[in-house]
């Protein structure tokens, strides 16, 4: 998700704070993008959402813009958006393929993304067109390090 600037600014302010807000959860079995999306792979199906780190920086999610079932998604491109009290952020797909399911629960309860970013707050399921793309994603360890470096940079 393209939090970049807002997250960077929030992160830079966190660095100034004497009491940091604690560590965000990272799940071992998942893969991660540098725009803070996660993907869970089961066979050829990929479930996608945004990470705990992302939802923490965003704040209360008030609206989720979902794609249609059947839509095509491309690795690295935005397929929807997540909106918080503060601002809107695009959500990018970690993989290319076709959307098979969208989490329509998010229409009624967008805050699921805050409460359960890796489980009930999943956003879309995709039938992958090229599983090889997964190799370019980060694992849990790499993503954790990536977040630490990003937060420290600003």
């Amino acid at each position, binding site marked *: 998700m*393209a939090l*970049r*600037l*807002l997250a*960077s*600014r*929030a992160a*830079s*302010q*966190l660095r*100034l*704070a*004497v*009491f940091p*807000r604690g560590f965000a959860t990272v799940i071992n079995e998942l893969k991660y993008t540098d725009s803070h999306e996660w993907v869970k792979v089961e066979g050829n199906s990929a479930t996608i959402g945004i990470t705990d780190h992302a939802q923490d920086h965003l*704040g*209360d999610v*008030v*609206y989720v*813009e979902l794609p249609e079932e059947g839509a095509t998604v491309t690795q690295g491109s*935005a397929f929807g*958006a997540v*909106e918080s*009290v*503060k*601002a*809107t*952020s*695009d959500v990018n797909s970690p993989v290319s393929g076709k959307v098979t399911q969208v989490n329509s629960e998010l229409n009624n309860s967008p805050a699921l993304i805050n409460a359960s970013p890796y489980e009930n707050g999943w956003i879309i399921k995709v039938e992958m067109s090229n599983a090889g793309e997964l190799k370019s994603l980060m694992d849990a360890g790499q993503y954790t390090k990536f977040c630490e470096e990003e937060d420290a940079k*600003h």
Partner: protein
Amino acid sequence: MRGGGLWQLGQSLTRRLAQTNKKVATRRCFASEADLKKTVLYDFHVANGAKMVPFAGWSMPIQYKDSIMDSTVNCRENGSLFDVSHMCGLSLKGKDCIPFLEKLVVGDIAGLAPGTGTLSVFTNEKGGTIDDTVVTKVKDDHIYLVVNAGCRDKDLAHIEEHMKSFKSKGGDVSWHIHDERSLLALQGPLAAPVLQHLTKEDLRKIYFGEFRILDINGCPCYLTRTGYTGEDGFEISVPSEYAVDLAKAILEKSEGKVRLTGLGARDSLRLEAGLCLYGNDLEQHITPVEAGLTWAIGKRRRAEGGFLGAEVILKQIAEGPPTRRVGFFSAGPPARSHSEIKNKKGETIGEITSGGFSPCLKKNIAMGYVKSGNHKAGTKVNILVRGKSYEGVVTKMPFVPTKYYKPS
């Protein structure tokens, strides 16, 4: 009234992410920490878990440990304490300070009873607003006013220029900018009960808009029963050396129910209350009549004029303004500043100037300007958010009923 275009800034920056190099944008858009001004409560905010952000050249808390939504709801259920020391307080003194100020603002300052204040606007020659401000007549030769942080330099230059010419014609006016004082805003149902613990003065006798100079927590403060949330509350101008102690005392007396609250919740609260944010809902080219602030133009001033832009403004009062500020409810994502408003025929009729998700109402609220004729409550519109059209309806403001303390 207060602040600058934070949400506008955040929104437009987020949208530009796709095109701009991340590092370049970060460096270009944000002042370094060393350049930002700090209020005397800076360390106190940080020690209380604040997320600090740059705002109008200051480092200010956008939120604390609780979320913006929780913070907003807590203000209306219990209370909030805001550090608004970034705003600029000033005093105008001298026997001609009232006629002097009346050239620059639309309010009937002469008609104010001593110890009362009102919201007003500084206008330019075209009748547009330079800034909005709360003006208080302390007495006939002393006016106290508070202006927006983001407009400080502009406002002070404007006042100074006019003061020079006024004095050169023999007028008696001088000013003092209260950089030695800090401003706290205490808002919500617990504001008065909590503050009462800290002062001997009977707060039940101080009504909305009224001003007193009195001791609070043992130090001499300027107290105004006003705010930017729609709730009952006070703005307390305190000598800066006592500000932290006062903030601590207020929080302690409330036994934790009044919480330190940041600019994020402040923006949600003022939007719910239907209050303008200068830089979004008020701008140099928007007149107070278009903004729905005709009530702030005193009756005598409408008859006499005598303020900058009077010709334009009085004409709008007589004929009706070409555009009007109204509120909206809408479906879909929250409408944000600069979202286009169209009528049901698909014609553009206006633009959103502020919007967001209301934590108290749990729905989208927004305000914007529409061509007159489209401004009646119940008018159905379409609002374009990120290229998609969503249904909206014009609604009266405030969105959340206000609770100003007025005599019954």
